[in-house]
């Protein structure tokens, strides 16, 4: 068993090595994961945010779009928990509705990107040769536009709509995912069980999807999680630059960008959404890190 750090006083520490080894893979991974306290805090926070986002109409106190010029930029109060923005809209309600958009775009965009990236990587690694070279050169070109630059360029061409934003995030996730999957497939396809499958007459598709893909699942899960964090950051950054979700629709990035104009008068309008983005991204990163540690034996 891997030597773990100090925070090992949880239940698992009482299982001795042998007992631990007898557990099935996923169960062992879950135990590893669940004794990482940072990850549990992160997971709890994400459950909370997702719950708030999903039940936004119920948990909010006001209509997020209702303006009231008499109540502009009020500090937090019993009526308006986090105060009001420059148009007198309830800030708490706007942030809750904002969570919906930010999480939805981040998760769906990443999911599409991970799916495409995994397939591209699988094909590239499995077929090798000219296919591989061609795909990897294309990925190299995508890597030439680092991070947010790629997203900005695509948005500048496609325009800003929710669907386009999801496309942007999907494209954004493809290069990293496909490189990781390709790398894994390259080493996996030399293994004996793949040879055995081929000897038994399994076709290419069967080897790729029934044998290789399940065995690359661990790194895919880890990087997909980290990509969600990246996507949420990117969505917020695009919103902040005015290239993401357009106001009046509430999205954390554009709420923050809006609040920036009132930095002196009402700094909370900038501080609250930023803190939310920060905590959300950090929680997902904590979960991703713990998943990486927990799934370690599966990651090559």
């Amino acid at each position, binding site marked *: 068993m891997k030597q773990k750090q100090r925070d090992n006083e949880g239940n698992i520490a009482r299982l001795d090595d042998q007992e631990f080894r007898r557990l099935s893979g996923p169960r062992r991974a879950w135990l590893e994961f669940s004794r990482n306290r940072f990850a549990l805090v992160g997971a709890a926070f994400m459950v909370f945010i997702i719950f708030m986002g999903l039940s936004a109409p119920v948990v909010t106190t006001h209509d997020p779009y209702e303006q009231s010029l008499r109540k502009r930029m009020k500090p937090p109060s019993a009526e308006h928990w986090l105060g009001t923005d420059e148009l007198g809209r309830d800030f708490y309600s706007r942030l809750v509705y904002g969570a919906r958009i930010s999480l939805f775009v981040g998760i769906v965009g990443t999911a599409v990107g991970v799916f495409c990236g995994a397939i591209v990587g699988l094909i590239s690694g499995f077929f090798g040769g000219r296919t591989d070279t061609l795909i990897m050169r294309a990925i190299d070109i995508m890597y030439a536009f680092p991070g947010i630059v790629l997203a900005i360029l695509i948005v500048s*061409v496609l325009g800003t709509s929710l669907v386009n934003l999801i496309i942007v995030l999907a494209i954004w996730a493809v290069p990293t995912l496909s490189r990781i999957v390709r790398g894994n497939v390259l080493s996996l396809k030399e293994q004996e069980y793949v040879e055995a499958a081929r000897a038994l007459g399994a076709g290419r598709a069967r080897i790729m999807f029934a044998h290789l893909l399940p065995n690359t699942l661990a790194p895919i899960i880890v990087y997909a999680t980290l990509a969600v*964090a990246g996507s949420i950051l990117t969505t917020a950054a695009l919103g902040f630059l005015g290239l993401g979700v357009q106001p009046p629709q509430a999205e954390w990035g554009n709420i923050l960008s809006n609040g920036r104009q009132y*930095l002196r008068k009402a700094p909370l309008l900038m501080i609250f959404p930023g803190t939310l983005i920060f905590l959300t991204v950090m929680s997902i990163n904590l979960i991703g890190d713990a998943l990486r540690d927990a799934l370690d034996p599966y990651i090559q």
Partner: protein
Amino acid sequence: MRKYIVKRLLLAIPTIFGAITALWFAMQLAPGDPALMFVPPDFQGEEAEAYLAKINEKYGFNDPLPIQYLRYMRNTLQFDFGASLRTLRPVTDDLARRVPNTVRLGVAASLLSAVLGISIGVLAAIKRGSWVDNMLMVIALVGVSMPNFWFALVLILIFALYIPILPPSGLGGAKHMILPTIVLGYTSAGYLARYVRSSMLEVINNDYVRTARAKGLSERNVMIKHALRNGLLPVVNVLGINMAFILAGSVIVETVFAWPGVGLYLIDGVNGRDFPVIQGAGLLIATSVVLVNLLTDVLLVYVDPRIRFE
């Protein structure tokens, strides 16, 4: 070794060409007539028609696509990106004026990032499992997770508004560089620190490190003479990736701090749908990323003789 370097160089060329081509295709894919994007929105009716005809004539939008592509490629290779649609100034001149600003900020941020990232990573690896390690890794994770635009605003709020000791934005002396450098440096140092730590941990578990300890070297000597040298080798590579990361971050940081660099230029271009500007700035960024990666790959060959040149 020369063969490897030449091969690596030859690989970089199609990537740059690919990036140029990708940008051109992206422009073709943009919905609507490309010429229409050149017409300022306040032009109406006949004025717009006349302008459109002029644009079509000038840029040759009526020519077949392959001809347009070749012309674009030829111009780009001569560093001619056309003129900005809003200011009508040559994009190349604008870029030339802005590059030094971005380089200045980028170099300062890279230095800060490298110093922070490497020292945090090495220290965490040496003290692995302790509270020092935990604390340092939390600091690194905060850097990774913090939205750079928000961090920038928080710093402006504290150091320019509440305790007005630093300018909130703009170009100027060394004081103007402090906040943007901190934002860019710290947010990119997080990744670096995590990478350095895991790279160091890998090395620390090696036999030769155990041998060094066994022969009675002090822990300090083991770390500095044996572990650090090998643990930091892969970091050279990551420093290249880090540069790309800082370049991407500078787009946002320059916008927040109104720092007149290439990143702000790109954002201005995107907001004004100024396609020559977007193309020029995008290409400059892409080319520098490819070149920096090339440079670090070549550098790695010199510092790590174990690399095989396949």
